[in-house]
C-alpha cells in the first residue's frame, strides 16, 4: 500500500473510524467491556493502526479483528482475577469465626442454591472446597483427578460459579470455548 500524505492519512483514518464505529461498539458490547476500559482497548488498536497504516491492506477488517482479540485478552486476564476474588470472598465469608448460627445457615443455604445450578462435577468439587474445607490435593484425591490437572478443573468450576453470580465477561461472542 502506498504511503499516504498527512492530510490524506488523516482523512482516511477519520472516515474509517467513523464507518467502523457501529461495528466496534457492537464488539465492545458483545464482549461486555466496561466503558472505563474500552478506551484503552480502542486507543491501543487505533494507534497501532495509525503506525502500521501503510502495511495494512484492509484496515476495517484489521481494526475489528484487533479489537475483538483485545477484548478476548481483556477478559482472559480479568476472568482469572475475578474468579479468584469470588473464591477468596467465599472462603473469607465461610471462615468468619464468630458469625451467628443463623447467618451461617443463610450463607450455606444461598451458596448451595447457587451451586445447585452448576454441573454435578463442579457442584461436587466446590462442595468439597467450601463445605468441607478441602485443599486442592485432597479434592483431587477425593474426585480421582490428577494433581497436575486439579487446578485447571477448579478454575473452570470457579468460572462457572462466578458466571452464576455476575453474568459479565463470560459471554463468548466469537465462539471461544467457555469455562466451566
Amino acid at each position, binding site marked *: 500500500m502506498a504511503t499516504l500524505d498527512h492530510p490524506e492519512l488523516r482523512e482516511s*483514518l477519520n472516515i474509517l473510524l467513523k464507518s467502523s464505529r457501529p461495528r466496534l461498539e457492537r464488539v465492545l458490547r458483545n464482549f461486555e467491556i466496561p466503558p472505563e476500559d474500552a478506551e484503552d482497548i480502542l486507543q491501543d488498536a487505533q494507534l497501532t493502526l*495509525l503506525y502500521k497504516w501503510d502495511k495494512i491492506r484492509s484496515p476495517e477488517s484489521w481494526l475489528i479483528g484487533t479489537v475483538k482479540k483485545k477484548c478476548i485478552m481483556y477478559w482472559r486476564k480479568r476472568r482469572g*482475577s475475578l474468579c479468584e476474588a469470588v473464591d477468596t470472598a467465599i472462603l473469607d465469608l465461610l471462615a468468619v469465626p464468630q458469625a451467628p448460627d443463623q447467618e451461617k445457615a443463610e450463607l450455606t443455604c*444461598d451458596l448451595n442454591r*447457587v451451586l445447585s445450578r452448576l454441573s454435578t462435577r463442579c457442584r461436587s468439587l466446590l462442595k468439597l472446597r467450601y463445605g468441607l474445607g478441602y485443599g486442592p490435593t485432597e479434592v483431587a484425591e477425593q474426585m480421582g483427578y490428577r494433581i497436575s490437572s486439579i487446578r485447571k478443573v477448579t478454575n473452570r468450576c470457579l468460572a462457572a460459579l462466578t458466571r452464576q453470580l*455476575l453474568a459479565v465477561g463470560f459471554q463468548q461472542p466469537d465462539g471461544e470455548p467457555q469455562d466451566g
Partner: protein
Amino acid sequence: MDKLDEPDRHPTPGHLSAFGRGRLSRRRSREVVRHLLTDCATCRQAAERIPCYGEAFHRSWLEVERRQESLALERAAAPELLRELLAQTGERQWEMVAQEPRFQTWTLCELLLDASRDWGFQSPARALELSQLGIDVAMRLDPAVYGETRVNDLFARAWVTLGNAQRIRSDFAAAEKSFGQAERLLKQGTGDPLEKAHLLLHRASFLGNQQRFSEAFRLLDRVASIARRCDDAQLHGKALITRGFLLGIAHDPEAAIRYLAAGIRKLDTVSDPRLLVAAHHNLTLYLTESGRYREALGLLENARPLYHQVGDQMSLIRLRWLEGKIAAALGQFLEAEELLKGVRQELIERELGFDTALLSLDLADVYIRQGRSAEMRRLAEEMIPIFRSRDIHRESLAALLTFQKAAEMESVTLGLIREVSGYLKESRAASSLRSREPR
C-alpha cells in the same frame, strides 16, 4: 458480622463495576459476593446494563489525532534523514543512530527495513547492513512515545528482515537465530496477526531453502488463513507465490505453475511491482522448463514492462537470462548464445559464482546441441577458476570438475548437463536463479 456484610444491602453500581474489573478491596469484594449469593435480580440487571461507549471513542480519537500530528512530522522528515544517514560511512551511520535522537524514529526504521528488502536481491550484503541498522534504530525507539508492544512488533519485523537477508546469503544458522529472536519479540508485541504472518512467510522460505518442505507448507497454510481472516488478498498472494517457488525447488513444476498463477491473480499490480516481477519470472521459468515455451514467451512479453519498471540491474540481467533459455529451447541458438554470453559476463563481473556456473551450463546446452565441442571445452575450462575463487561447496566443485573432464573427453551429454545443473540448484537453491521468491 460487619454491618456492611449484610446480604440484603445492595452494593453501589460503582462497587459492582469495580468488582467486575477486579479493582475492589478484599473486604468490599466479600460484601459484594455475599450479596450476589442472594440471587439479587437488581444487581444482576445493573451488571448487565447496556454500556455507553461514546466517551471512550471520543477520548481515543483525541489521542489518535495528537499522535497523528507528530507522526506526520516524523514521516515528512524521514526520507531526508535516510539519505543523510546512508551518505555516511558504515561506522559513522552507527554513531549517528546511537547519538542523535532524530534518527531514532519509527518511520526511519521502517524505511531502512524496506530498503533492506529492496536490496535483498540486488546486493545481499547491502541488505544485511541495512537490516542491521534497522535493528539498531528499533532498539532505540522510545516505548513511551510509540508504545512498548508496538515497538516490540517493529523490533521483531527488523529481526525478520535481518533473518531474510541472512537466508539470502545462505547463512542459515544466523537466520535461524534471527527468526527465533523475532518470534520471542512478537510474543511481547501487540498480537498483530499481520506481523505474525510476515514472520511465518519468511520462515517458510527459510525452511524451503533447507528442503524442509512440509514444515514450510504448514507455515504457509497459516499465512493463508491469517490473510483470509484479515481480508488481505496481497498477503494471500504472497503465500501462494512462496508456495509456488518452494514447489519448484521441490521438483514439482506443474504444481509450482498452478500456485504461482493463482498468487499473481491475487496481487495488487500497483503496490508491489518487485514481487510481481519475481512471481512472473518464476512462472516463466517453470513454464519453460516444462516445455510450455509459447506460454512462457507470452507471459514474458506481458511482464517485460514490469521488469523495466522495477528497473534494477539484476532483474534485467535475469530477464535476459530467461530470454536466452527460451531462445535455446526454441532452437534459436544464435540469439540464445548472444544473450547468455552477455549475461555470463555480467554475472562474472558481479562475482556471482553459482549463477555463473548455472548459466554456463545453459550455454553448454546450446553448444552441445550444435555439436560445438571446442567451445564447450573452453567454457568448461573457464568455469573452474571462477568457482575456485568463491566460497563454494566442495561437492559442487567436484560436480563441475566431472563436467570439465567430460568436456575434455568430448563426452558431455544433455543428460550430464541437466544432472550437474540440477545438483548445483539443489546445493544452493537459496541463491540461484530460482531464489527470486517474494520478499
